[in-house]
């Protein structure tokens, strides 16, 4: 099959897959370990008690350990799934998977650093920045960040710098 034929067939499948009733992507609850499930059930009990609203701040504070641990579990599991599935879905080999991890963990560290800087900013300065960025319409779109060239390293013969 030629590439254009394949593209046409995949496009055909894409239109069939366009389902107006888009469903939310969820974790398979049974994959969590038993202690994790127990903890998440407790958090869910608290959430259900105050549904459809959110639990009040004092309740969250009282159950802070459960609450934050629950969030940590979700964050960690989402990351675990992403790091495992993405390279596999792109059919990456060992080297490509290694590059994926390098780029992913660098993104995470870059972002944590920028959030740390933001959180250290005085409130007035931060508010002014938000107003300015919102006025420029920048909070509703994303763009390519400028990267500095990597430090010169010895190249493999004939290989292109990734």
């Amino acid at each position, binding site marked *: 099959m030629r590439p254009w034929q394949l593209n046409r067939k995949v496009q055909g499948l894409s239109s069939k897959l366009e389902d107006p009733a888009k469903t939310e992507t969820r974790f398979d609850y049974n994959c969590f370990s038993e202690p994790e499930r127990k903890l998440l059930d407790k958090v869910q009990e608290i959430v259900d008690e105050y549904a459809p609203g959110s639990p009040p701040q004092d309740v969250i504070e009282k159950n802070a350990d459960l609450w934050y641990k629950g969030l940590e579990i979700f964050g960690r599991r989402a990351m675990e799934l992403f790091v495992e599935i993405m390279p596999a879905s792109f059919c990456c080999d060992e080297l490509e998977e290694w590059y994926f991890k390098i780029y992913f963990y660098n993104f995470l560290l870059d972002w944590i650093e920028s959030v740390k800087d933001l959180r250290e900013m005085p409130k007035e300065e931060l508010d002014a920045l938000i107003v300015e960025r919102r006025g420029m319409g920048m909070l509703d779109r994303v763009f390519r*960040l400028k990267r500095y060239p990597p430090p010169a390293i010895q190249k493999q013969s004939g290989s292109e710098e990734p």
Partner: protein
Amino acid sequence: MKPAQLTKRIDELSEKLKPVPSEGIKIDFHSFTEPEQLVLLKNFELDEKYNGHWTHEAILENKEIILKGNHIFISRITELFLFAMPRAMMLDEVEQKLFAINFWGFLERWLECQKNVRKWTEKDREDFLRDMKITESKNHKGEAGSNGKENNN
């Protein structure tokens, strides 16, 4: 609750959660739409049929269904990650935007890198992997050495 108390309680909980081995996390199959489920079921069926012994012809013959299955996984996994992470880290509006900018930047850079790596010759890839493993094992030895020193002190 004071931060120190909270950290202690979270550490205790972490300790309780630690010993149970995880069998890996999956996406709830029911969260896929019906057409998506059909594509994935077809993929599972093929996987079972070839049972790790995929031939070049079999891949070519089922290329579109394999690619579509991978596409579904990639989009769903990205969606779940982008939904769960900012919430798990309790980000405000600006921090969420920053997260999105950094995330899409990472994805674009990695795809570019992937494109370049795929242009490498087989020999270059093997050489690079070998060098990487040598460096890694040297680093491990270095760490073990420095740990040993620390322990002796």
